């Protein structure tokens, strides 16, 4: 899930002041930002109060199902058409993807109300941790299911670095070194040599900007793996 945190209100205020926005519509997100407690109903209502304290009118608000879904968001916009039409600006309490979905769908200035920080695991209620950076070139098979790209603050594929002390990380000193954890877990599983040493990352596999069309796969385009003897698609060929 995409983890967000509240954006500095001074920046939001400056954004709205810059265009002289007196009337604002607020859009939340029923998915990640609701779980992050940054863009669900309670937070949207808090934002409403904050905007009203600034002397602005909130023409309406909504927390749709999921802010980054273009189709769903258009339906949500249709439901609140008049409220959005009468607003000078829209404040979106969702991740950057949700902000852009909104900005594409309405003709009003749209401003971010949150900062998008990482793709997070929900460790427990209200506690999130980044475990994957979506690099497009997964090494978890070699690293015992612990991602060094994400978990090591330097993102080193081979470690530990020289700062490791008693098994602890030099940057985040309250945490175990990711590479110590990887090597321990590999040793426990009897595959100590599996991780070492990993070759440099193929950064070209990180699609930037990311784009994926499932229809391409059906047509056998580049996003699909080449059919080979190990490919699940190759059944009829053998």
């Amino acid at each position: 899930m995409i983890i967000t945190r509240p954006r500095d209100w001074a920046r939001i205020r400056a954004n709205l002041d810059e265009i002289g926005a007196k009337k604002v519509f607020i859009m939340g997100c029923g998915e990640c930002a609701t779980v992050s407690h940054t863009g669900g109903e309670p937070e949207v209502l808090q934002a409403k109060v904050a905007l009203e304290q600034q002397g602005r009118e909130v023409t309406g608000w909504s927390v749709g199902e999921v802010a980054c879904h273009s189709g769903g968001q258009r339906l949500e916009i249709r439901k609140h058409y008049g409220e959005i039409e009468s607003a000078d600006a829209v404040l979106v309490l969702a991740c950057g993807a949700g902000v852009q979905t909104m900005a594409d769908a309405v003709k009003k200035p749209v401003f971010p109300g949150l900062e998008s920080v990482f793709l997070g695991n929900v460790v427990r209620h209200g506690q999130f941790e980044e475990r994957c950076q979506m690099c497009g070139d997964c090494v978890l098979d070699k690293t015992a299911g612990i991602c060094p790209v994400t978990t090591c603050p330097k993102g080193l594929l081979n470690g530990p670095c020289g700062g490791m002390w008693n098994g602890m990380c030099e940057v985040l000193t309250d945490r175990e070194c990711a590479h110590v954890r990887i090597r321990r877990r590999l040793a426990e599983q009897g595959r100590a040599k599996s991780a070492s040493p990993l070759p440099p990352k193929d950064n070209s596999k990180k699609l930037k900007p990311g784009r994926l069309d499932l229809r391409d796969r059906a047509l056998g385009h580049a996003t699909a793996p080449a059919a080979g003897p190990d490919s699940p698609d190759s059944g009829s060929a053998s």
Partner: protein
Amino acid sequence: MSRLQSALEAGEFVVTGEIAPPLGTDLSAMRRAVEVLGPVSTALNVTDNQGATLHLSSLAASRVVVDMGFEPIFQQTCRDRNRLALQSDLLAAATLDLVNVLVVTGDDPRGGDHPEAKGVFDLDSTQLLKVVSGMNEGHDMTGRPLKGGCDFFAGAAMFPEAEPWDIQIGRAVEKAEAGARFFQTQAIFDFDKLARATEAMHDAGSYVIAGILVLRSPKVIDFINAKLAGLMVPDDIASRIREADDPAEAAIQLAIEQVRAARNVADGVHVMALGLDDAVPRILREAGLEI
């Protein structure tokens, strides 16, 4: 060919010193340090934005050391450059007659003077060592042949006192296999652990140069314990300096003892004088080295 390499291969006990390039373009202080340390050292490490703080580049500063008649160890961290820039600088280093290169990961930018900087770490130190080995074989990291090759004597860092030891030594052996012919260690306080490391690295075909830190004042000890990643001055050594009437002299005496101890268990010493450069010739002489 690298004088450092010849000396190590001839079984000589080597001495390396540390030169910090300036923040700015005034090279006078750096030249003075080279003049003091150069004549008593086999080679001089020239640091690369040490501690993730901005300094003039190791590439240019290393060449200054060559021009002054001494041999530098060009340091390259993985922190500030991607694989294109790293290879490009290695090629430049070869044309500038920099024969030794020390490959290190580099401190995280968040601990330096530009904490907003992006840490690059496109390659890690093991991967970069492999790149250097490949360049010595005449190709870049994609396998394309170089017009005019390189002949670097490559080294890496290790910390014989870091636990867990099995992971530490496994890592150092990987670096040796990737092409590290010599290792310079973090500051040594426990010479039994140094002996253990040297034995293991000799088995892997590499030399070990022991880090000696001149702990010139209680303030320096506090700084090391608080700021330097992966380094802690043991209490007995710290109190010896703290309780001395003349901490600098106590630090020099300690360094003399340590160099003497290292002579039996390492292939050389890397003296980190922390500003006491002028004391280094005396430390080496009184430790019994012919300089």
